């Protein structure tokens, strides 16, 4: 390329941009200069970086994949983030080649243009698969001029609700299927010859282009921008917003934000920054310690990161390693990584000072629309590998490459073999398999590769499968081979003699990994016998993923096992625990009588008894609940067990509005239990079951200075839930009786809100006028905000009254309103007016004291970078009144999770590495301005007048689970929801109002250094 012309053009462009650049945090955008960019990279010891290609050969690269000829296919978009009215979409797919092997692209061809935000490209089947917004295309060059001339819409109906969420991350799987992902805001509805496939929210699609079978491999995540397969075909995943590092993908896995599931899994590195792209690196060019490392991109912090996996349980443990590259330039945006034909690591750099489209206006001039780089990382002093054109190799030569130490070579060889068809490959493959040496340490993997080839060559006929080979791999001494083979049983099930029986050994395998795949495969096959076998999983030790897998299997196969359990034909081999687990997992209330019978006639082992009782309490009818109730109130039951079971009974009341049959006053006995947890639950139960006779005793507990705070608070809350005059009178008394701790009268007023909001409002105004305890004041405000019309009642009382609010009391009130995620202008004004009466000033709501103009922000950024002190900032962060730690979590560098930190707001472990200064400052002053994906609130109004604001944790047809501002998870039955709307942020505005400018600078400095 003519670099001088480009350089001049770039300088001119930067001059034009200059005025726009005189803006906040992003004012120092460096001019594009590949030499300076290289110089700004800190590269890990032993590695070096060179420029493989840059604009104008490519612009704005989004994804890249190599083909078996060693050519690099790159999809690019300058239309992103949004097509302009009148603009003709003309995004491209480009092919780059390094013909002379000097590590630099020397030839480029625009394979396709006229595309609309092609977020992915994967060469294959004589052309390339390309993501084109709503469409999954196959483009082909039929006349050999290098340009695509046919365009086929293979699949369509993918959502575009967010253009960095549209289908992306095309990968070629070990099973010759195409894998591709969509992110959280996308809703896709795809017609296939076998019916419509729908996926709401994020997930990984799996597609077989030959049979046109499309299904969802795994679900959830926020921005699933990375997916790689290890040498055994296992899926590792990264998330460009999820924050848990490396994730393990298996069929049916569900992670954060998965739609329609009440249970999700967790990633392996909580507190990680966002990652984009993923590749497992290996091969002779790279040093020994790099073999098998995972490389992904921390695009926000301008880093290329590395992880090491170790096998653990049914999956892996993942450990973060020092970065491969860390650039000081804000424009370095690594977003994809691939191993190349020469054994080097290739990094696609999107090159943009702006990270994505949410931050600044779509048309903001700081958005770069023309540049892009592909960097090449090599190991110093080690020879690169000769490039091979795999399409030119004979079939035996290709088979030979399956022994290659480079996964690149193995994958390319397989892709070419897949395309040659059974007739050409199978005879050679048979010879090759026979020639393998069983003593070769790689023998088990090579035999699996042979099986994979049969899978990839499968065109649906009986002769395409090799059940003998499959069986031998199922019996391999290597659990990784056995696990892979279990999944393949599913794919060949339509032609295997008895696929379910083939999996019988897997579910009792000594390896958790094999059990996991066996359980998932059986659930996919379905039917009574498959369900019975899958539930063998219950007999063995289970880590989280395996427990999830059995849980999911029980739910998916419910229609197969439930009738059998009911009619007594279910075969449990004397392990009734399997039935109990299945009933609880699938919430199969119809089977509760079966468990009751077993309990009564001794069919439940002592070890299974708590689970059986829990199933009855959670799922049963009132008569069943009575059985559990009698166990709870049996003096012989230890308090801890009674407490747990009572929790289940309370859950049944909350979720299904049912209570134990008969007289439940016996629960009163437990309110005096010396076990605080048990007593508090018993007290809660008196209100749930309306044991009005308990009112007097509760009043005594509420006022008792000798009872523990949790029990006293429970008693006060229960008085709010009990109907009638005695509880109300008791609460009124508690409201006004002097107490050392203001939290008790506050709690009493909060409970009174449920009896009479008007009466409570009067009490509240009096209380707020004098209260000094901020937590008590906040509790009060929250109680009014959580019932319908509560806010207006409190506002009316404030307006009626001549009493006043201190600035602190007013501040707490405005914060509580802000944290509710709703607009309550009436209450906001009433609070401001009461505060103004106190100060004698006019009734004006103070604007955010830290609001800044652009110039002030510049000066403030200087202060943060200069005099501010991170150690002082850390102390400010920890201050109780700022509540940072209540909602946010910061994990320690050793990777151990501080469970004390809150989970209400985003994990801040890497906030400094991932967010620019102005973003951090803005988010502190205006919390609702930029809400991290997955942290937008939902506001729900229930049929009984409650108003609940929280962040969605899970959602299914039956239930919505929200996490509220106190970190509590609330399960709301869908049937009780009257109205649902979108709120903004749970973080109240004004939290930092009490800080001085210097203190705020210290806090920002501390946050900005986290993860750096």
């Amino acid at each position, binding site marked *: 390329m003519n670099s001088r012309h480009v350089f001049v053009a770039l300088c001119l462009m930067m001059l034009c941009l200059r005025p726009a650049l005189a803006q906040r945090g992003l004012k120092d955008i460096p001019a594009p200069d590949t030499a300076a960019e290289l110089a700004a990279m800190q590269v890990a010891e032993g590695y070096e970086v060179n420029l493989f290609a840059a604009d104008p050969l490519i612009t704005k690269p989004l994804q890249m994949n190599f083909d078996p000829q060693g050519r690099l296919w790159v999809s690019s978009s300058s239309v992103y*983030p*949004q*097509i*302009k*009215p*009148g603009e003709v979409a003309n995004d491209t797919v480009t092919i780059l080649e390094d013909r002379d092997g000097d590590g630099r692209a020397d030839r480029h061809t625009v394979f396709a243009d006229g595309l609309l*935000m092609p977020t992915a490209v994967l060469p294959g089947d004589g052309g390339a698969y390309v993501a084109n*917004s*709503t469409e999954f295309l196959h483009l082909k060059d039929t006349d050999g001029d290098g340009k695509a001339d046919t365009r*086929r*819409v293979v699949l*369509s*109906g993918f*959502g*575009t*609700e*967010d*253009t960095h969420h*549209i289908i992306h991350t095309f990968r070629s799987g070990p099973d010759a299927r195409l894998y591709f992902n969509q992110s959280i*805001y996308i*809703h896709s*509805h*795809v*017609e*296939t*010859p076998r*019916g*419509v*496939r*729908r996926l709401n929210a994020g997930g990984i699609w799996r597609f077989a282009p030959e049979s*046109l079978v499309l299904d969802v491999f795994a679900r959830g995540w926020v921005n699933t921008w990375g997916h790689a397969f290890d040498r055994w075909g296992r899926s590792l995943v990264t998330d460009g917003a999820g924050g848990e590092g490396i994730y393990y993908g298996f069929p049916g896995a569900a992670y954060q934000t998965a739609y329609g599931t009440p249970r999700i899994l967790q990633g392996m590195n909580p507190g990680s920054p966002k990652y984009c792209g993923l590749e497992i690196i290996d091969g002779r060019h790279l040093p020994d310690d790099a073999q098998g490392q995972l490389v992904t991109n921390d695009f926000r912090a301008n880093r290329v990161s590395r992880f090491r996996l170790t096998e653990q349980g049914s999956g892996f443990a993942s450990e973060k390693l020092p970065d491969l590259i860390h650039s000081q330039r804000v424009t370095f945006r690594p977003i994809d990584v691939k191993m190349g034909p020469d054994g080097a690591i290739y990094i696609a750099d999107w090159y943009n000072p702006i990270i994505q*489209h*949410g*931050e600044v*206006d*779509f*048309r903001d001039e700081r958005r770069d629309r023309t540049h892009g780089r592909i960097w090449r990382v090599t190991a110093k002093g080690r020879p690169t590998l000769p490039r091979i054109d795999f399409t030119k190799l004979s079939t035996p030569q290709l088979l030979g490459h399956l022994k290659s130490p480079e996964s690149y070579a193995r994958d390319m060889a397989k892709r070419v073999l897949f395309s040659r068809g059974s007739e050409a490959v199978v005879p050679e493959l048979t010879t090759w398999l026979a020639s393998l040496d069983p003593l070769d340490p790689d023998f088990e993997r090579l035999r699996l590769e042979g099986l994979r080839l049969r899978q990839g060559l499968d065109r649906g006929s009986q002769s395409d499968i090799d059940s003998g080979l499959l069986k031998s791999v199922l019996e391999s001494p290597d659990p990784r081979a056995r696990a892979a083979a279990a999944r393949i049983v599913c794919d060949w099930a339509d032609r295997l003699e008895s696929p379910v029986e083939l999996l019988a050994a897997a579910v009792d395998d000594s390896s958790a990994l094999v059990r996991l795949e066996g359980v998932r495969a059986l659930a996919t096959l379905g039917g009574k016998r498959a369900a019975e076998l899958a539930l063998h999983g219950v007999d063995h030790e289970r880590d989280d993923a395996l427990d999830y897998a059995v849980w999911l299997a029980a739910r998916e196969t419910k229609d197969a096992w439930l009738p059998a359990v009911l009619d007594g034909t279910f075969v449990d081999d004397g392990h009734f625990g399997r039935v109990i687990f299945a009933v609880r997992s699938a919430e199969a209330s119809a089977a509760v009588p079966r468990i009751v019978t077993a309990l009564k006639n001794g069919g439940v082992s002592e070890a299974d008894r708590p689970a059986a009782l829990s199933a009855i309490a959670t799922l049963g009818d009132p008569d069943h609940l009575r059985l559990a109730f009698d166990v709870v109130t049996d003096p012989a039951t230890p308090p801890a067990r009674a407490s747990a079971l009572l929790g289940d009974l309370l859950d049944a009341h909350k979720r299904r509005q049912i209570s134990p049959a008969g007289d439940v006053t016996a629960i009163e006995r437990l309110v005096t239990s010396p076990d605080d947890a048990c007593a508090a639950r018993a007290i809660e139960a008196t209100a749930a079951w309306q044991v009005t006779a308990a009112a007097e005793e509760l009043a005594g507990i509420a006022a008792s200075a000798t009872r523990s705070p949790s029990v006293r608070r429970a008693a006060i809350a229960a008085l709010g839930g009990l109907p009638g005059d005695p509880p109300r009178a008791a609460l009124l008394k508690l409201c006004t009786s002097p107490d050392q701790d203001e939290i008790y009268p506050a709690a009493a007023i909060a409970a009174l809100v449920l009896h009479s909001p008007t009466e409570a409002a009067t009490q509240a105004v009096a209380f707020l006028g004098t209260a000094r305890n901020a937590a008590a004041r906040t509790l009060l405000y929250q109680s009014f905000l959580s019932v319908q019309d509560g806010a207006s009642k409190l506002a009316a009382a404030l307006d009626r009254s001549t009493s006043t609010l201190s600035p602190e009391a007013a501040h707490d009130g405005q914060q509580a309103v802000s944290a509710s995620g709703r607009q309550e202008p009436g209450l906001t004004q009433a609070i401001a007016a009461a505060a103004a009466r106190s100060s004698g000033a006019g009734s004006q709501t103070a604007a955010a004291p830290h609001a800044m103009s652009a110039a002030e922000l510049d000066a403030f950024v200087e202060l943060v970078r200069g005099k501010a002190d991170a150690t002082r900032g850390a102390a400010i962060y920890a201050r109780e009144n700022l509540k940072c730690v209540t909602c946010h979590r910061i994990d320690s560098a050793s990777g151990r999770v501080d469970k004390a930190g809150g989970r209400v707001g985003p994990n801040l472990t890497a906030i400094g590495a991932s967010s620019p200064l102005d973003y951090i400052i803005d988010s502190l002053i205006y919390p*609702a*301005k*930029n*809400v991290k994906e997955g942290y*937008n609130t939902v506001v729900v109004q229930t049929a009984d007048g409650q108003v609940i604001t929280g962040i969605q944790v899970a959602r299914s047809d039956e239930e919505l689970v929200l996490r509220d501002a106190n970190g509590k998870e609330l399960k709301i039955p869908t049937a009780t929801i009257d109205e649902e709307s*979108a709120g*903004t942020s749970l973080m109240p505005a004004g939290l930092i109002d009490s800080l001085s400018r210097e203190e705020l600078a210290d806090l920002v400095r501390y946050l900005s250094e986290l993860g750096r």
Partner: protein
Amino acid sequence: MASSRARSSRRIVSRLLVVALAAIPLGSRPAFADPPTQAASPTTAGAWSLRDGDRVVFLGDTFVEREGDRGFIETALVASHPDASLTFRNLGWSGDTVWAESRGVFDQPSKGYERMLALVRELKPTIVFVAYGRNESYQGAAGLAGFRKQLEKLCEDLRGTATPASDNAAANPGAMRLVLVTPHRFAAAAGDARNAALEPYAQAIRDVAGHEQAGLVDLFAQMPTTRPSATPLTENGVHLSNAGYAEAARIFVTASGHALPADFAARFEKLRTQVVDKNRLFFHRWRPANETYIFLFRKHEQGNNAVEIPQFDPLVEAAEQQVRSIAKGTR
């Protein structure tokens, strides 16, 4: 529900119509001849025609959505009415059903259904083509009654959008005509079982068309399933190829009482290109990307960009003018 006798008599009429249409030798008539009198008098069951000034809306699943990007049916209808001033708005959505199952976005489908009706109200169509039934047919016999009921509701709700609200005296009650479209058969490769399940759904559509006094385009009965020595009509057994859309276009035009020249696809390629361009502009108008940020719950971040979306309106109108002028020119 109509009595079975009434239903069977309607079926006979519609069968007669099919026979009558099939009797017209395709392509043997000069282009744009007067409508064949035996087929399309306005009183014949299932008959429909396009009039000068018609605002046409297409509603349906992938068949409709992809027609927007292929443009064969629209092109054929425009070309066969070169003197009429027609507008077309394609509201197809992949995977959709009569319950608007693809239109919920972040809400339940019922909300998407309401939004769809609101959009139709806004577009004020005089004629709406409704093409559903394929995706519903995967439910088999068990889903048939529900489908039929919902299709009837959809017809009534669509007509309801043309009923004047108190503040909208301009709307003309009953002005909207409906044309129901049966799904074409699955190609042989996709299996006969699928067609056996689809057939009663096609019949339900014919029945509802009669019951609702709607027009009919019977692709199920009229689309050929094979064409010897020619490009296949579908790309995957379900979705039409360009050749398939050209065939469907001919059936639409014939049903409207006109005919097409044999070489219409080649002859109107320029017109079709313009139709497709116009439809792409309209797509960005009614289903813009980044909806989450522009209009929905993250609009506090990028809602200021919403101002661009209506800027597509004049572009769509200009493109449609261009369509009409090309159509006139090809006359």
